[in-house]
């Protein structure tokens, strides 16, 4: 055994020596891209602590003596706090409804045998091809008739419908991989279908629920198109619609714009840093290819 081991060891050494230049190059490329994703964020946060005049003079200079004027303006003049609350209420409600109804539908589609299942799957895949553009006018009309325009529900209901397809498909993909034995065991223990869902499938599918909720949240929180049309009044306006407003009204106040962007981005980013490990896990374990 001894000689082979030595040889193996030797080739390994040679390998790593030869490849270190390549590895360095790889890291150079990767760091370069990482800079494009990090630096603009730093630049914008840094500038949010400067007066507009200073942003214009030298936007690269570090804000050694940070000023909070922009932040005070954002909260007092732009009422960004209200938009925050609006955004959070609408996006969390959407996530809740999508996970609840999508989860139930996914459970049926992945664990029950019945006629018409394939048809439902086909319809769901086809639904992915319907963009918001193709539904917006009738939905707007419907919301006007039901007096839901410029109310929280006016955004929550269409967004829930819009995200259900995606959520149902990836949750169903994940649930399909859960072993049948678990289902049988819980049946023997006297669970009915609803208890089976809440006590077995829900806990086991936690990763996919986590990643689905993250994506639904992001797509809801970041959806400017629907916000502009369904909830564009000051008292219900979510944060993206406010950003759009700021860019057209205060386009010359650089400090305020930098602050508005920072305030929108930083909380989401912080939350992301805490939960990033779930994103990849849930997104990929239940094959999205279906």
């Amino acid at each position, binding site marked *: 055994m001894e000689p082979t081991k030595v040889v193996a060891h030797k080739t390994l050494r040679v390998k790593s020596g030869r490849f270190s230049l*390549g590895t360095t190059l*790889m*890291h150079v490329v*990767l760091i370069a*891209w*990482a800079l*494009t*994703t*990090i630096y*603009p*964020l730093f*630049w914008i946060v840094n500038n949010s602590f400067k007066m507009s005049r200073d942003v*214009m*003079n030298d*936007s690269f200079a570090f804000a050694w003596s940070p000023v909070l004027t922009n932040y005070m303006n954002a909260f007092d003049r732009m009422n960004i706090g209200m938009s925050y609350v609006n955004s959070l209420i609408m996006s969390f409600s959407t996530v809740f409804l999508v996970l609840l*109804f999508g989860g139930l*539908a996914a459970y*049926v589609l992945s664990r*029950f045998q*019945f006629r018409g299942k394939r048809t439902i799957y086909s319809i769901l895949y086809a*639904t*992915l*091809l*319907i*963009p918001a*553009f*193709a*539904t*917006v*006018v*009738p939905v707007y009309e*419907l919301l006007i008739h039901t007096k839901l325009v410029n109310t929280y529900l006016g955004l929550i*209901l269409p967004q829930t*419908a819009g995200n*259900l*397809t995606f959520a149902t498909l990836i949750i169903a993909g994940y649930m399909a991989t859960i072993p049948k034995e678990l289902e049988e065991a819980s*049946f023997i223990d006297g669970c009915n*279908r609803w208890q089976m869902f809440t006590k077995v499938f829900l806990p086991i599918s936690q990763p996919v629920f986590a990643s689905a909720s993250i994506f639904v949240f992001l797509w809801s*929180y*970041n959806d*400017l*198109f629907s916000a502009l*049309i369904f909830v564009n009044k000051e008292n219900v306006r979510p944060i*993206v619609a406010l*950003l*759009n407003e700021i*860019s057209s009204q205060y*386009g010359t106040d*650089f400090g305020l714009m*930098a602050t*508005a*962007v920072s305030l*929108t981005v930083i909380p*989401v*980013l912080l939350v992301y840093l805490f939960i990033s490990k779930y*994103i*990849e896990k849930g*997104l*990929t374990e239940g094959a999205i*290819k279906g």
Partner: protein
Amino acid sequence: MKGDRKYIFTFLLPAAVFMSVFLYYPFFKSVYLSFFRTTGFFDKKFIGWDNYKRLFTDELLGAATLHTLEIMLYVIVFQVGIALLLAVLVDNISKFKGFYRTVFFFPVVISGTAISLLFVLVYNYNFGLLNNLLAGFGIEKILWLDESNALRAVAIPTVWHYVGFYFVLFLTAMSKIPSDYYEAAKLEGITGVKKTFLLTIPLIMSDIKVVITLAITGTLKVFEFIWVITKGQNGTEVLGTYMYKKAMVDQNFGYGSAIAIYMVVFGVILALVANRLLKRDEITY
């Protein structure tokens, strides 16, 4: 199981109701509306195929279609290309994998509107990041958002935004390749770049196909980047912004709906063509 029918029905019902009321009914209503000339919601007149005939003579729509296709080209080449390159690189290194994964995903979690606003500041003529940089080198300032540059200028944030998303999908696909494939290749002397092109990329071809389809259908939905950065001026109008202007700004619901249906048909055709061109057998390990 006994009594399953009841559960199948009850569990599917809420999702079905939501989707019927806010997706399927509006979609078919849009198809219906596209055959009408409308003034607001209450006055409409049946005009048959006239809206569709108008589509083909509408030069602005033609331009918007071309702009969308140009952005789509950039997205497929650069967004998918860069994502693939980064995934290959990260797959080949052993240190800092988690760091790159996390950092590359940053733009994905940021809203397109915020990114657009950021790029408004980057491109600004007088004090933007880019012109500041040029001034530092003593080069004359450039109008980044004039006719000749604007479309590429809005394509950059569009591309940058989702590189991280496809990067994660590719990286995960690569991590599913069994390691004995690589060991066998190593015995054959296939390593480095050769390994990437002969082994890794062919093995994740089905994922590349999915990503390209996602990229194509995703580009048709591009809206906020153009809306916030240029409002569709200077040759940057895309289908999304044009539809919004016609339907919501001009309140021309009939013609707006016709444009929306055109976008759906266009998207389906492109997706089918892409799938046909990239046809490969599914690989299971």
